[in-house]
């Protein structure tokens, strides 16, 4: 990108769709392809936001007081109660993992989504002055991040399926339901499809929503400056709804899938 300040339309959009990438073969930063590539911008933003969330909640938990709760403490308690209420409603067993996992997913995804509301040029432009060509600061519109999240949930689902039901219990459920023992290949295929669709739909849902939102923000940024606020304002208000619902759904489906893994439905 030779001229950041006056690109053509196509260049402008393409520039906003490029990641800051690190090639692990040559250890060079720049646009590359292939498997051994790290998207540095996604990693940096998501780790920073994650650390911020953990340190903030930890400091509140350390300074917790019953007599004179601070406003921050009230806020954090509100989020935690909201999540724990949902987990209690859906998940009936005992688990030390699900509620913290749900809280982490909810807050993390929500904050990463909220970065979408920042102006599309704000951070990339400042970084461009420091010699960084491409930087996408909305980490959730990178499919790598959403797939990482959903595959982690997928591994947990498989783990708890085996742990709670045992090898034979799970085998019975996979092979003998829903059509009975004589159609066991069909049962097995149905179950496999059902399981494999879970991580796919979980990650593609988040990615699709955030990517469409970001792309529309980029298109709005191409309009003349005096008209941007009308379309941009409407889309921003709508997008506030979308980002909170998507974070909520990701958390909710994680809880539902894990509770399905804990109790045999048949």
């Amino acid at each position, binding site marked *: 990108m030779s001229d950041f300040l006056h690109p053509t339309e196509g260049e402008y959009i393409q520039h906003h*769709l490029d990641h800051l990438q690190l090639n692990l073969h040559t250890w060079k930063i720049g646009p590359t392809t292939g498997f051994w590539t790290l998207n540095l911008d996604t990693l940096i933003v998501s780790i920073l936001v994650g650390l911020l969330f953990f340190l903030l909640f930890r400091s509140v938990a350390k300074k917790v007081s019953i007599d004179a709760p601070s406003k921050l403490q009230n806020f954090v308690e509100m989020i935690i109660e909201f999540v724990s209420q949902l987990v209690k409603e859906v998940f009936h067993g005992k688990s030390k993992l699900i509620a913290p996992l749900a809280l982490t997913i909810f807050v993390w995804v929500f904050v990463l989504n909220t970065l979408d509301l920042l102006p599309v040029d704000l951070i990339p432009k400042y970084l461009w002055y420091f010699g960084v060509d491409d930087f996408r600061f909305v980490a959730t519109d990178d499919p790598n991040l959403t797939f990482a999240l959903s595959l982690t949930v997928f591994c947990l689902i498989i783990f708890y399926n085996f742990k709670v039901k045992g090898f034979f219990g799970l085998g019975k459920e996979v092979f003998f339901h829903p059509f009975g023992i004589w159609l066991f290949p069909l049962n097995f295929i149905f179950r496999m499809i059902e399981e494999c669709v879970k991580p796919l739909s979980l990650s593609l*849902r988040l990615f699709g929503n955030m990517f469409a939102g970001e792309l529309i923000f980029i*298109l709005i940024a191409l309009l003349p400056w005096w008209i941007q606020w009308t379309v941009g304002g409407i889309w921003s208000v709508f997008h506030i709804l*979308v980002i909170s619902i*998507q974070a*909520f759904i990701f958390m*909710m489906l994680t809880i539902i899938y894990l509770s399905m893994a804990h109790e045999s439905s048949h």
Partner: protein
Amino acid sequence: MELTQYVAQVQSFTAIGAALLICVAAIGTAIGFGILGGKFLESVARQPELSPMLMMRMFLMAGLIDAFAAISVAVGLLLIFGKNPLLLEVVNVAAQKIG
């Protein structure tokens, strides 16, 4: 000249494909949202005390329905405004032919 024709053909089909992607998904989502909102209002009218719980579930369902439309909008916009892989193939073949 022939190359221009090919490029134009790929571009026009891509535009039609992307428009279909976006509009069919939008039709499905619109019908889904209509049914969802209608049922929600019906059940709230029947049992108003359940409305907070139903509202939350309605938004959950709204997000689930919304996903397909959002994914197809993203893919459609990417085909139109981003790098079009179908067109790239034509250009690559043409570059080989020309040498």
